């Protein structure tokens, strides 16, 4: 481990991997550290990702694809199911990955491109000189060492402490932290080409429960509800267990994971002097679906490109790194985050009856060539009762 790099990346998830990979390819010296003993485990994800989105970064490989998904089904509280084909179903429909292999592959690519990678190495404090972030003190098997860098990229995911140690408030409001639990279940009857989302106050209040196919007879079955909805006697795990009992009583649970998924707005600013924040640490998770793999990769790649440019110009001040913040906010990703935040805030106001109404109004619509605004207009036309509910949303999206 050297003690000086152009770029230090903290966290070996998809965001950190893309940052390290991109930076190494652009000729920077890069160090990626990951506090866990292995990349990609434990998985804290339902593993759904859009096909096109993924292809932007690398060619799909059967080694890390568990299922090829062709449709999504949204199941309303009364059982009304709305089926969407993969083109309109959003970024979590396409493939269900095997992230244990996928994350490892991404870090592998970074290392092949020249990045130094250290696992079981945890950032414990930033190095800050005259207000400028200059790297991090890291701990490896009990030993501490300083790694200095011209730019430090915080890719430390949902639990993100690094930016906070640098003086940036990364706290997620309780109601916007999705409290999640998921089982990998085998030996069950499922549609191996569908990702299903269940809604309703009995199933997942203000959240959703997912059944993502993982093969012919296996699925990731999980739930996310706002942390503020957890009650001592009825937490996320209780909702999931109840669903399992009703729907898959004989399924065999071979893995169990827990996690937090932030569905708040992104951080107000994702750069400071010598520091860039990406992925879940920057809170760029889709507020509706909780999906963040694609956005982590996008922000990771963009941050590294801008960092490399700043380094070669000899200026890594906040101002010089600011194009990263501006660019992702004005990108398709940034605009989608803003729009979907408003849609999410609207959806959580709908009770079961309204969700049922909405699902029934949508049944039969051809989604393959309809925009969000077009869809809202169509719903109002089919179900004028929804006008009042949807008017606020339509105005917000204009």
């Amino acid at each position, binding site marked *: 481990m050297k003690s000086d790099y152009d770029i230090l990346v903290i966290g070996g998830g998809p965001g950190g991997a893309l940052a390290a990979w991109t930076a190494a390819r652009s000729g920077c010296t890069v160090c990626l550290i990951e*506090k866990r003993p292995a990349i990609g485990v*434990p998985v*804290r994800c339902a593993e759904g990702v859009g096909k096109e989105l993924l292809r932007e970064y690398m060619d799909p490989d059967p080694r890390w694809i568990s299922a090829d998904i062709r449709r999504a089904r949204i199941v309303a509280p009364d059982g009304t199911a709305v089926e969407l084909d993969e083109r309109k179903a959003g970024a979590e429909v396409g493939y269900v990955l095997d992230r244990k292999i996928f994350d490892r592959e991404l870090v592998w690519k970074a290392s092949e491109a020249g990045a130094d990678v250290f696992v079981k190495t*945890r950032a414990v404090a930033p190095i800050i000189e005259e207000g400028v972030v200059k790297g991090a003190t890291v701990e490896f098997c009990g030993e501490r060492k300083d790694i200095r860098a011209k730019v430090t990229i915080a890719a430390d*995911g*949902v*639990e*993100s*402490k690094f930016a*906070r140690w640098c003086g940036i408030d*990364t*706290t*997620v*409001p*309780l109601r916007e*932290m999705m*409290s*999640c*639990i998921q089982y990998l279940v085998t030996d069950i009857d499922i549609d191996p080409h569908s990702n299903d989302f269940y809604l309703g106050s009995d199933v997942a209040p203000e959240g959703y429960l997912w059944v993502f196919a993982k093969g012919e007879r296996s699925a990731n079955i999980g739930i996310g509800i706002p*942390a*503020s909805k*957890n009650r*001592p006697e009825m*937490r*996320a*795990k209780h909702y999931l267990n109840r669903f399992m009992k009703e729907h898959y009583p004989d399924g065999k649970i071979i893995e*169990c*994971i*827990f*996690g*937090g998924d*932030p569905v708040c707005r992104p951080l107000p600013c994702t750069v400071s002097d010598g520091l860039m924040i990406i992925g879940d640490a920057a809170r760029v998770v889709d507020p509706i679906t909780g999906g963040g793999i694609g956005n982590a990769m996008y922000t990771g790649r963009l941050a590294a490109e801008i960092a490399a440019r700043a380094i070669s110009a000899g200026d890594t001040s906040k101002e010089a790194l600011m194009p990263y913040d501006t660019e992702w906010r004005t990108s398709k990703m940034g605009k989608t985050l803003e729009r979907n935040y408003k849609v999410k805030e609207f959806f959580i106001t709908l009770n079961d009856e309204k969700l049922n109404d909405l699902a029934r109004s949508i049944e039969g619509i051809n989604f393959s060539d309809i925009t969000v605004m077009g869809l809202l207009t169509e719903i109002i036309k089919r179900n004028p009762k929804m006008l009042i509910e949807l008017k606020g949303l339509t105005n917000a999206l204009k």
Partner: protein
Amino acid sequence: MLNIHREICGYCGACVSVCPEGALELIDAWLSVDESLCIACGICTKACPLGALEVTDEE
């Protein structure tokens, strides 16, 4: 004070990001609480999908 039921904790980090004081951190396979920062507000106890955290009156 904050009690962590380590036999229940799933090492997921949901509680870490909601703590307004930054008192929690995942270190190796443990959730650790910095008692000098914790104000026993109980916010983290609500975020846990498993019920692994509890605020008690003990000092």
